[in-house]
């Protein structure tokens, strides 16, 4: 009898520990009717460091950068409906104000600093199932990695940006950055000129300066190219 009681207590304690360890307070809606999850859409999102694109993670506690895009999905509890976290489960995410955040399909873009409420609504139904708050912060500074690079002619190397708020805190979301070759344009080419990362290719020997702008923050990257094949003069012998 006594052993049985102890076994029951042990079972209850284990269950309590499991329940506690499995709970994810950051993703539960304010109304307690469902959970919100953040979808990693690319490697440029700091919230998704180490995650592959398409992975669901808990809603990050860190702010999203103003100008950045991100995706959030809602999954109701069984009492309010059925559905999976992703895909068409009949629920959409609606920002409380289109002045603070705008949507395009499933993608949400942070427009202004502040908090925005993301409302989970079933399509065609006027009621709100649940909601969650997300904070937006402007980009205060960016760090480019690597800060400088040396390339052999013809070689390529990725360069990426990490954004921080005014106090140096991390910011999530796919930040919106513009890349350009500020000087030495003949030495390098850029694979893309927008987004949180690009790839630089060495073309001719020389130096170049890349300039990247993300919101109000910007940074330069020095690139040195060497060992490139000599440029042909393109002349013809007559």
């Amino acid at each position: 009898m006594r052993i049985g009681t102890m076994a029951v207590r042990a079972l209850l304690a284990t269950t309590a520990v499991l329940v506690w360890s499995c709970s994810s307070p950051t993703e539960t809606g304010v109304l307690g009717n469902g959970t919100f999850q953040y979808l990693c859409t690319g490697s440029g999102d700091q919230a998704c460091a180490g995650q592959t694109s398409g992975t669901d993670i808990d809603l990050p506690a860190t702010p999203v950068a103003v100008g950045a895009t991100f995706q959030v999905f809602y999954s109701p509890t069984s009492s309010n409906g059925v559905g999976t976290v992703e895909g068409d489960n009949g629920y959409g995410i609606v920002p409380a104000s289109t002045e603070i955040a705008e949507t395009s399909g499933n993608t949400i873009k942070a427009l202004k600093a502040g908090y925005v409420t993301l409302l989970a609504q079933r399509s065609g139904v006027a009621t709100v199932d649940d909601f969650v708050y997300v904070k937006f912060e402007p980009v205060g500074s960016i760090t480019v990695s690597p800060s400088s690079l040396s390339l052999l002619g013809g070689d390529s190397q990725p360069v990426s940006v990490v954004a921080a708020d005014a106090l140096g805190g991390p910011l999530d979301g796919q930040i919106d950055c513009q890349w350009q070759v500020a000087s030495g344009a003949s030495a390098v080419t850029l694979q893309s000129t927008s987004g949180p990362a690009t790839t630089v290719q060495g073309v001719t020997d020389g130096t170049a300066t890349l300039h990247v702008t993300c919101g109000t923050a910007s940074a330069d990257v020095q690139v040195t190219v060497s060992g490139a094949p000599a440029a042909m003069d393109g002349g013809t012998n007559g």
Partner: protein
Amino acid sequence: MARTLSWQMLAAAPLVAVLAGCSGIDHTTLDSINTMPDDSTLSETGGAMHTGIAAAFQPRVWTHDVWGTHEQTSGIDVQSSDTSVLRVAHVTNDKRVVVWAAAQGNATLTVTLNGEAALRVPVVVQDPPQPH
């Protein structure tokens, strides 16, 4: 017989009038308003919310009559005077409502019982402060 009935009706008339005059909305509350993450506020006396912020609460209305005060459990609704500023929706399968600040401006939140205004709450919506 007819004269007796008339006298009874006359005698009852003041009582009916008193009963009718004593019934009505007693008080209304916005119950269990959730904490908003910024300094937005909402209460029975007024609200100051930042654009983009939402709050949930359960509107509760009590009426009174000669037998006392009673909480009403149906016929309660919440409306906004300007839905471009402040929007309202019921929570799915729930007695709570969600109000959210859609744009800057002023709006009045009205709690009604069977269409009769039970509480009016003036709400001011302002954009969140932008860092310089």
